[in-house]
């Protein structure tokens, strides 16, 4: 692979390195992962910043995401257009946040966005219902889902407004030590 240097300019690589939690090597590796999803679409030369987007169907078929119940949400949250179609930048961004080096508040911010299905900046009952159904593959009855939702909001809602704001969410995350290790995709 002698042509590795020509994929990105050194400046581009530096920029990526400064903006993500990846090293040069990992960035190149991720690029190749990205390209492997659709070799015919992704050019070998990224120095001129080509405007390439991979559709969600391709992104969601990655083995890392394929069986994840939240794969669509993850793709939507990290994609520029909000529909799961990802540029290389979005792709890097996604795995950077999900890497082990990302600090907790950053992870919590994006986790909050992932669970916030209707994008209203609050996790409300309907968001929770969707989360639960995805988590348990519709194993719980409607009644149980309703009860869990009520309890969760009751537990985590500090300011009593009936839904979880980012602050409530972060407050809860602080007390969940396992969050850092679970909100992590190894690539």
């Amino acid at each position, binding site marked *: 692979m002698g042509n590795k240097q020509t994929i990105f300019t050194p*400046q581009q690589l*530096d*920029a*990526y390195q*400064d*903006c*993500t939690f990846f*090293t040069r090597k990992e960035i190149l590796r991720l690029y190749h992962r990205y390209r492997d999803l659709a070799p015919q679409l992704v050019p070998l030369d990224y120095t001129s910043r080509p405007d390439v987007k991979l559709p969600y169907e391709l992104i969601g078929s990655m*083995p890392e995401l394929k*069986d*994840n119940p*939240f794969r669509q949400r993850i793709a939507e*949250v990290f*994609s*520029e257009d909000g529909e799961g179609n990802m540029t290389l*930048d979005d792709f890097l*961004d996604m795995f950077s946040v999900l890497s*082990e*080096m990302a*600090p*907790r*508040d*950053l992870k919590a*911010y*994006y986790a909050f966005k992932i669970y916030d299905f209707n*994008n*209203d*900046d609050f996790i*409300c009952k309907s968001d*929770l219902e969707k*989360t*639960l159904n995805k*988590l*348990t*593959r519709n*194993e719980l009855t409607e009644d*149980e889902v309703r*009860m*869990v939702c009520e*309890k*969760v909001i009751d*537990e*985590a809602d*500090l*300011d*009593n*407004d*009936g839904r979880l*704001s980012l*602050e409530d969410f972060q*407050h*809860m995350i602080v*007390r*969940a*030590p*396992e*969050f850092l290790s*679970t909100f*992590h*995709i190894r690539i």
Partner: protein
Amino acid sequence: MDHSVNFDPSVHYLEPEMESPIDEAAVHDSFSHLIAEQTQDSHFNDLEMDQLDLDEEARDDVGYLLPPETRASEYQQEPPHVDHWSSATLRILSSMPSRTIGRSRGAIISQYYNRTMQLRRHRQSRPSIRDFSRSSRPSIRGYGGVESHMGDLNEEEAKRERLVNNLRNLSTSDRVRMLKAMPLSVMEKTDLRRQAFWHKESPSSSSNIPCCSQIKDYLMIVARQTWYSWLSLLSSLQLWQTALKTVSGRFGTGVLSYFVFLKTLLFFNLFLISVTGLFLVLPQAIFSPLRSNSTGFYGLELLTGGGYFTESVMFYGHYTNATLKKDCAKDSEVGCGNISYNMSLAYFFTIGAAFFVTCIILVYTMSKLFGQSFRIDKSRSILAMKVFCSWDFKVIKKTSVKLQSENISTQLKELLADVGRKQGEIPILQRLARISMHLLAWSMCLGSTVACVVGVYYFSGYMHKDLEIRAQNRHFASENPVVKEASLLALPAVVSSINLLLPGFFNIVASLDKYDSPSVRNYVAISRNLMLKVSVLGILCYHWLFRIAADPQSLHLECWETFVGQDLYRFLVMDFIFTVLDTFFGEFLWRLFSQKLLKRKRKPVFDIARNVLELIYGQTLAWMGVLFTPLLPAVQIIKLICLFYLKKTSLMMNCQVPRRPWRASQMTTIFISLLCFPSFLGAAVCVTCTMWSIKPSENCGPFRGLDTMIQSGKKWVKDLEETNSKLAWLTWVHTYLVENPVIFLFVTAMTFLVVIYFHTQVVDGQRKIITLLQEQITNEGEDKKFLITRLQSIHEKNRPLSPRRTREASEVKIFLWIYFSNILLLGDIQKQLIHLVFPFSLFIL
């Protein structure tokens, strides 16, 4: 909506402090400082706000007032009562700390400024804070103003400019770290980065990063990666991990606790066998090889432990009381010297030390478990954490994903069952009927237990008599040894069948008294089973120590210790055989029978109480027997491993999921305490009793010729003192620790109790404080609601503004602000308290 377009870039400076996942402890106060600052300034801010408010009221421009469009849409989705907030109320709401603290760039930037300024002052000793001091104040005006001008490009540009300035003033490594942690898309970050580096030498920056910090980062990554891989290696090494996961996924934590307990027992036995094997069996086997055995091998010995095994390292009788000496070549180097190994001493101290260490491990495990299950901050956010934090994004295998969601849903159901159980009022008559039912059930259980115990007592007496007659009568001497051996199996078989049948009877009785919660039902079942096992074991101990050991002559026993050891071995093996039979007939055949013939859908339910008590019973036997049979833990290990696979297979095949799932949060704690209190303590009492007061056999074993086993230690210390007078203190220590330990035990127990008392008091106090704070938070939430409605009503009444009303409204706003800040502050205090208190609770015992 797109996350990166939706937000003004500077909003995303959420990261007031660049904590890495490692230093989590530092995070909790990240906002408290800020909030304190805000509370101080709140009055000032409110004045500012009012000023603004007046202008706005005059214009009454809703679009202007509203923060980003998202917020507008959000309020339209709200339940009806919030539907028509007036614009001013809306604005107040949106600028409340609970809404802004995570997003308000003004606030976050200010904190960030403060930090970087401090950093710079340290480095340059140049107080340049004046340039930024104004903007470093958390200004509501700034926030509200800019937010409302979302569309305004100029405003956004200004904001961005300030940010870029911010970044520029940082050192390069800080800047990069800051940039990395921003929740922005890579594109925008690159943009910011370009701007931030513009004024500096060149955009190619990586060379600017100080070499050492780069190396530090690199080292950190490497260290973390090795740590993670080490962790994953460790977790993959853990015994039966996948099996346990499958069980917990299918059957919940109640059944899982049985298997976890089994695993714990396995480790205890591994420890025991490694100690006895290393210090007793190995030296004995090396120094005095097995004598040739003339007796034939029938196969029955595997059950009885007699015949061939009698004269092996397995039993006490084989061990020598001599001092083992290694034969050195006569004139070898200096290093050889005389290596001697006093077997009786080794025997005494090995058993003593093994018990002592086991005791410490047990107490430690118990205290840790108590700390975990009785947390100070009990019920808060367990469910929420389960929902949001339990999904492991790393898992990519299809089966594991399925397992994980199965697991989560079972756990959620258990949690719900815990929460949803309500204590309904029961009429007196019904309650009376219930109590009488309970009484009846208990008396039936007690009666049957007593009957069984009496039966065991007389049966063991009868067997003893029978043995005596056989021993004294020459007539039996020519009898087939196999028959003789087999007759020894009668008592273990009877006891094991009692152990098997009576719990079944208890279960039938338990269907009489209906306890609501499955955990109470389990506790009742456990206590009944415990009662049975403890009394049976008590009778057996009496049988061994006071019938056999006290008068070995009547049985013509050469070595009563070996005999008792064999008896214990028989009990252990019999117990295992009966468990296997029970699993086969009770679970497998019963399932086939009820499904095929009775055409019932139901499968048997796994009986946690009985199975756990069986394990505890077996372990007690193993502990009691280790003195007489140093290899008994090995037998127990084999038994446990077989049991694990047997029970797991049977569980998967034959049992159904418990109909009402319940959380066994404190189950493991209870099991370990049971293991500690009646089981281990009973065994320890038995063993010490034997060592301290019963005369060992004259002709066999390491203690032959001594009055009691403890004498060996005494003799050794005395010898030591004679040969080396400097070691006199050792005699003293020995006298007080081993021979006369009452004072020592008393003092340690007292200190221990005092420490525990203090800790519980501290924890109790903190728990009270936390409840108070939680109450306060809810109260303030109520206040907030009240104030907001009040504000709303004032605004509604006064479309045409009167100055007095405005003042009133502004007062309400000030209150609101203070309340909000307080609420968040309280949340923070609570958070800190929890982290402060938690280590104590771990140490509670």
